[in-house]
């Protein structure tokens, strides 16, 4: 039996009842008094000079309150490398470039006004292939850098170079070597709730930004910096989350539309809402970073990995968001998935006139793991070793220090591999080449925070009122993962209350303490660790109050009993049982002496003590409030890109069985077993929800999803042509929750938000190879690609 009352239980999401009754307020539902609606005019070219913009007709349209172009606002650079401005004044470099913006009394009028803006362009030569863009004579996407210095190349000044051991020695030690070329593509995050925000200034130039960001505090800082740079010194910014309709990476960067809303609100002195249409969501939101890999790895005669060498080229698009930093996560599976002594990884990010990219669930991990894990199967074939066996031979182990200096603590990877192997009946089914095949792939991911900023901290505040209700001011965000439920369980457990006592307020920079952001699968881990510490403080305060007031409460009750019942015998109570806070504990809302938990008089409901001890008079009144700021003992990557950036790591293995139709090229998934190391599941039903959802997204990544770009233009900006899986695309996902409580995790928990996606696509690719003997390493593996590969193979054979 579990030692815990609430964590580990599948507490239902009743804390989120508003979501099933239509009452939850998303950004699309938020209205502020006098609110205007903003719309953005995008570029008509992938690369062009803006010769002129005429907004006069738009300005005259009834209901239009402001029309802004790059000429109307200060030319302040924003973004990770400060390589773009909010409205583009002279040059556009991609189709999604924001050229003008309108605020009007309705979205329809704003849209109509966009149609009245006349922009004259002079088209410039453009480049859409990152390899072409690296050539000396390629058209330059940027003429100057953020500091105004001339730029000579489209290659970004972000040298991602990682090296450990000696690749040449590794090559010499190899009996077998496999070399593969792998490609992954643009994928849209497809949040069901489209992007949007509301910006509102007060008359003192203080801004409230209702934003869907999952980094409220970093987002706030970007806006503060922007306001300062446009001359609004001293403006205060409050960022508030509405209910968020999905994120999957889209809310990690502050998008340009948010700065535009700020500008429109400043100009009109009215609250301004910008809400994307679905088409905008596809055309103007940064998708997952695509990558081109060349991967080579070797093993000795026994199958022990000898080296792994990876060269990557990343199509950055026209500007730089978090897509360009995905190599910091790519190097985790490249250096540390399985034990490999000699590793080299270089990534080159290249500007093109394509859409710029950003984060998506797993960051760079799905891309890199697709390369590593399809290559593992190539190597297994070279070496004549069963692919599962090759993985077990090189399996990560607890206590290991990887070439990247990641400190592996708990690591049940071998259990994950063996579990899916058994479930899918590996030995029986593998190697038939009869149109049915099986394959597997594993993953490593950060599961205990990710120190990408100096602080990886997370604050929390826990307040208890006289009724025993608990208000938690939680610094993270919820984009749908269910954090309010899980945090209510963890707070209840740590404080000795019940989950239904706990209310969670999150995503508000004015109320909550600082946090690095709800990214990197870190929320449960960070919030839990912070909650345990904050609850410890609050609990101490309650117990001190109990020591002070319990004797008088007990005596009062006894006297009342005596008054009502003349036969009542006053008991002889041992008050030393409750004489010190350490002698008491709280569980399930009851305070009791540790030595005698069922004591007939000293066992007491918390509100009895709280009512007596809280707001009782001058000099006597108290509050119960515990706050904590948890910053895990981890390191930022050093100059060599090494360092233990997470407190613990999650492992997992997915095994897939597919059936490939040789006539149509269609791939059907017959079985999908996803074994995931979660430390301890805080809420098994919610953990499974993360695995189901991520695995489905991974199947889409593997088989169907692709944002199609032709000369920089998104060709499929709708759900008809962008193939997200529906309920009719049955994928029989079986989540297998592997529990091995982690000493650093709150109640043993590790993060699980992203892992489910990561190994899915390579497991499918490996299963397809097992089914039909062709290896497709270019995502997504569409029916067309399967047919082409089959025809090519048949041609080679004849």
């Amino acid at each position: 039996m579990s030692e815990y009352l609430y964590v580990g239980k599948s507490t239902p999401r009743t804390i989120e009842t508003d979501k099933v009754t239509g009452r939850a307020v998303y950004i699309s539902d938020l209205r502020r008094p006098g609110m205007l609606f903003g719309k953005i005019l995008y570029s008509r070219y992938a690369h062009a000079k803006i010769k002129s913009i005429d907004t006069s007709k738009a300005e005259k349209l009834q209901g239009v309150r402001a029309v802004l172009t790059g000429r109307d606002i200060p030319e302040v650079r924003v973004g990770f490398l400060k390589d773009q401005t909010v409205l583009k004044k002279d040059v556009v470099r991609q189709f999604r470039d924001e050229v003008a913006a309108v605020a009007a009394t309705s979205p329809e009028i704003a849209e109509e006004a966009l149609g009245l803006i006349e922009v004259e362009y002079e088209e410039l030569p453009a480049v859409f292939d990152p390899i072409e863009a690296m050539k000396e004579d390629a058209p330059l996407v940027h003429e100057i850098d953020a500091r105004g210095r001339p730029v000579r190349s489209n290659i970004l000044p972000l040298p991602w170079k990682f090296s450990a051991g000696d690749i040449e020695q590794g090559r010499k030690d190899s009996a077998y070597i496999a070399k593969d070329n792998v490609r992954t593509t643009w994928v849209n995050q497809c949040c069901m709730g489209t992007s949007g925000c509301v910006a509102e200034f007060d008359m003192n130039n203080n801004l409230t930004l209702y934003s869907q960001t999952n980094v409220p505090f970093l987002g706030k800082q970007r806006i503060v910096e922007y306001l300062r740079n446009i001359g609004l010194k001293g403006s205060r910014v409050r960022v508030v989350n509405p209910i968020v309709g999905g994120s999957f990476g889209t809310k990690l960067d502050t998008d340009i539309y948010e700065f535009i809303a700020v500008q429109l609100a400043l100009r009109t002195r009215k609250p301004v809402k910008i809400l994307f249409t679905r088409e905008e969501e596809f055309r103007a939101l940064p998708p997952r970073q695509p990558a081109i890999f060349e991967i080579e790895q070797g093993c000795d005669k026994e199958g022990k990995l000898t080296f792994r060498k990876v060269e990557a080229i990343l199509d950055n698009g026209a500007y730089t968001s978090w897509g360009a930093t995905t190599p910091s996560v790519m190097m985790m599976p490249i250096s540390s998935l399985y034990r490999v002594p000699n590793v080299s990884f270089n990534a080159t990010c290249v500007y093109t006139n394509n859409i710029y990219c950003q984060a998506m669930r797993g960051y760079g991990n799905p891309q890199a793991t697709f390369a590593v894990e399809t290559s593992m199967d190539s190597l297994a074939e070279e070496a004549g070793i069963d692919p599962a066996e090759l993985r077990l031979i090189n399996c990560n182990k607890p206590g290991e220090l990887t070439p990247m200096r990641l400190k592996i603590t708990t690591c049940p990877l071998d259990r994950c591999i063996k579990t899916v192997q058994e479930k899918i009946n590996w030995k029986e089914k593998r190697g038939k080449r009869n149109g049915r095949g099986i394959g597997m792939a594993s993953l490593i991911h950060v599961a205990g925070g990710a120190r990408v900023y100096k602080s990886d901290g997370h604050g929390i505040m826990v307040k208890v009122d006289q009724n025993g209700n608990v208000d938690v001011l939680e610094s993270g965000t919820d984009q749908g993962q269910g954090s309010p439920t899980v945090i209510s369980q963890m707070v209840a457990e740590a404080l000795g209350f019940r989950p239904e006592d706990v209310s969670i307020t999150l995503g508000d920079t004015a109320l909550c303490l600082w946090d690095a952001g709800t990214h990197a699968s870190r929320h449960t881990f960070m919030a839990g660790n912070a909650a345990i510490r904050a609850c410890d403080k609050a609990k101490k305060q309650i117990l001190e109050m109990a020591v002070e007031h319990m004797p008088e409460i007990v005596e009062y009750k006894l006297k009342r009993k005596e008054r009502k019942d003349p036969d009542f015998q006053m008991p002889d109570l041992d008050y030393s049982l409750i004489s010190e806070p350490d002698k008491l504990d709280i569980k399930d809302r009851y305070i009791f002496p540790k030595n005698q938990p069922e004591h007939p008089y000293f066992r007491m409901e918390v509100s009895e003590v709280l009512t007596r001890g809280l707001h009782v008079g001058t000099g006597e009144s108290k509050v119960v409030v515990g706050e904590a700021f948890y910053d895990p003992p981890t390191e930022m990557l050093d100059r060599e890109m090494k360092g233990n950036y997470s407190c613990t790591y999650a492992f997992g293995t997915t095994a897939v069985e597919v059936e490939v139709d040789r006539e149509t090229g269609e791939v059907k998934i017959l079985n999908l077993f996803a074994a995931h190391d979660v430390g301890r599941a805080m809420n098994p039903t919610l953990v499974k929800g993360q695995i189901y959802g991520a695995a489905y997204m991974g199947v889409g990544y593997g088989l169907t999803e692709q944002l199609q770009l032709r000369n920089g233009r998104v060709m499929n900006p709708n759900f008809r042509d962008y193939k997200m899986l529906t309920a009719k695309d049955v994928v029989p996902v079986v989540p297998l929750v592997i529990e091995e409580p982690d000493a650093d995790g709150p109640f043993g928990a590790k993060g699980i938000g992203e892992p489910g996606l990561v190994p899915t696509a390579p497991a499918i690719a490996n299963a397809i190879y097992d089914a039909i003997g062709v290896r497709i390493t270019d995502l997504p593996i569409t029916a067309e690609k399967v047919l082409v590969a089959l025809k090519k193979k048949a041609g080679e054979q004849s």
Partner: protein
Amino acid sequence: MKKVSVSFTLNGEPVTIEVPTTWNLLKVLRECFELNGAKEGCGVGECGCCTVIVDGDAVNSCIYPIPEIEGRSVLSVEGISGTDGGLHPLQKAFLENNAVQCGFCTSGMIMSAKALLDKNPEPTEDEIRTGISGNFCRCTGYVQIVEAIEMAAKNKEGNF
């Protein structure tokens, strides 16, 4: 702008509105009645976030022309809870089974499920999947949604 006056039943109440002829049912629900449960996820009838029930059928309210609503009966997610404020069995099952993550698709999903169960109280898994095939969800992978609908079908008390 040309306007049209239409009378219909909304969540059991007779209502009359006058709106531009170009408005769709979703816009009317949200703008005239502040019923924000139905959402616009795509605006062109592809994603199902705007699903409501009209005369027993699940429809995409974002492409439902308002003149067509005359005399019909519209049920939105706000109208399915009990009069005592208690949750509908589908709403309970969705919370119980983690069929809600970000929740943006949830109103539409519940209404499609309700239209299905009203016609077919004991659907097979395949029938459930067909019933919600026009409702996209990015978070759940549909599994726990299908399970929740099965759970609601088993736990139902009286008519849906």
